[in-house]
């Protein structure tokens, strides 16, 4: 568990951040210049806050008032940089063992073989970094950080320098890290795709401050945070489990807290935990349950809030069981339906609008 409450002035930019990162992946999301990297550099000890406190699992790494400022090597944190930063004069094996060798045997929490196997870099061990592809380099860099048995893993846009194909190849590895090695991960990113795929907790940063933080689903379904999450198409993100596949009709059934969702056939095995994006414009609202309709998903729900998004568009938040759905309807529709909080309605979602790319595994 990372606890951080720091202030730092950099030029005419004021950083004032308070956050905590528990188990799983905590994503630090914001546009460039919002102070994300500064935050993890302070956690790692590569830059110094003007004041504040940083602690990991109750161990104080920095305390401005008490004059505590542990050197980076004493903090026991893993850091995966945007550019791999592998040591060019060492082989991949030499790089992987760099941090491992500095640890007393009793403190080595990760096994070399297990890490190498998970990252699929067995065949690269004797090569030098210069002979690796971008994705291989980043995998080796992740392995190197893991083998130092860190208490928390810091990742600074580790995929930003890679092409889309390499990104897609590396994402599943990172998604598995937190669970397989039970290390909390603080993941800096300005890519909402990566955040949706990886994050359990989302911290939205804006202008050197934390604008909002909480479970990813809660923040993504909040129209009020649209200016911060909104470079991305508006919509809710819900957690679900793949319940069954129906190959005859090319659809899959997902169960979530609020009912069952029929979506385009997914490749993921039954039982997979997934995160589903439901675009706000793809959801319709019916006051009474329609009969004989082509739309496969008719979910009973209640209206939580209604607010104008702009002159012609209205944001409506629905509660469907414990799940929040974000719906955008025209101002004209609202004028006729006159939705108010508390109303019982039905949310209609076409199965086809939830494509394969909108269902991401979180296992």
């Amino acid at each position, binding site marked *: 568990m990372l606890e951080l409450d720091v202030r730092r002035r950099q030029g005419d930019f004021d950083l004032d951040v308070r956050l905590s990162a528990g188990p799983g992946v905590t994503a630090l999301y914001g546009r460039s210049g919002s102070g994300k990297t500064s935050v993890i550099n302070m956690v790692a000890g590569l830059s110094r806050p003007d004041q504040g406190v940083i602690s990991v699992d109750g161990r104080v790494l920095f305390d401005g008032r008490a004059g505590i400022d542990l050197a980076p090597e004493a903090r026991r944190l893993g850091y995966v940089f945007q550019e791999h930063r592998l040591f060019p*004069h060492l082989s991949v094996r030499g790089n992987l063992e760099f941090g491992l060798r500095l640890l007393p045997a009793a403190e080595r929490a990760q096994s070399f073989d297990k890490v190498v196997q998970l990252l699929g870099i067995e065949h690269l061990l004797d090569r030098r970094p210069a002979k690796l592809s971008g994705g291989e380099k980043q995998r080796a860099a992740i392995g190197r950080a893991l083998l130092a048995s860190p208490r928390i893993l810091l990742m600074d846009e580790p995929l930003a320098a890679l092409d889309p194909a390499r990104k897609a190849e590396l994402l599943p590895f990172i998604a598995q890290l937190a669970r397989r090695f039970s290390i909390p991960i603080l993941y800096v990113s300005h890519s909402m795709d990566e955040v949706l795929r990886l994050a359990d907790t989302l911290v939205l940063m804006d202008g050197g401050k934390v604008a909002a933080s909480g479970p990813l689903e809660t923040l993504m379904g909040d129209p009020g945070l649209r200016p911060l999450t909104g470079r991305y198409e508006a919509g809710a993100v819900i957690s679900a489990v793949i319940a069954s596949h129906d190959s005859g009709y090319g659809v899959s059934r997902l169960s979530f807290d609020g009912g069952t969702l029929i979506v385009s056939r997914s490749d993921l095995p039954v039982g997979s935990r997934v995160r589903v994006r439901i675009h706000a414009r793809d959801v319709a609202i019916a006051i009474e349950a329609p009969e004989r309709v082509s739309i496969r998903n008719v979910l009973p729900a209640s209206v939580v809030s209604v607010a104008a998004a702009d002159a012609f568009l209205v944001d409506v938040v629905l509660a469907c069981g414990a799940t929040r759905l974000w719906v955008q309807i025209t101002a004209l529709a609202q004028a006729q339906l006159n939705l108010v909080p508390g109303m019982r309605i039905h949310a209609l979602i076409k199965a086809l609008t939830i494509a394969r790319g909108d269902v991401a595994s979180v296992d």
Partner: protein
Amino acid sequence: MFTLTPLEIEALRLSLLVSFWAVAASLPFGLGCAWVLARLDFPGKTLVDGIIHLPLVLPPVVVGYGLLVLLGRRGVVGAWLHDWFGITLAFTWKGAAVASAVIAFPLMVRAIRLALEGVDRGLEQAARTLGSGPIRTFWSVTLPLMLPGVLTGVILAFARSLSEFGATITFVSNIPGETRTLPIALYALTQVPGGDEAALRLCVISVVVAFAALLASEFLARRVQARLKG
């Protein structure tokens, strides 16, 4: 057949001995100065930089005379060295090594500093986050990465030491078997009638030694580069 006369062998041996110790003894200081100049910022840094580079632009005779005044048996530092440690530098081969080291020092520092400035500090940060302290990081990351530059500095300094004449003859004079290195022996021969042929032979030896040093440095630099590129 080109066989060396005893006089030539002695001059060659002395030259190699003096140059070796000049480089070996000044290398740690060279690394230190390069590190200070490349990594630290302090008031008066330009002055320090200037002082280190001074022997490059001063006439070597001035440096030699300065060494004589400072390190001679009655010199401020020389007397102290003699009384406390029994070390005499003036008119010994050790003095010749000191003179060569001072003259070659700026070349060495320049090359090493350049190499150090070329090392990506991000790699050092990465090493620190992996649990390596600053000193271990220097030995295991920074130094290996700047090795090509260090090698260049060493070879440059060695070659400059081999050719050192002015400061050496001023500080330690021309003593056969003690301070008569190749350039000094060559100079002595040109001062006596009928020494032309012997002088020419020393010229050839000097060229061969200098050339061998250059080739060796090129070879080593390539090997180190190849290692870095995998």
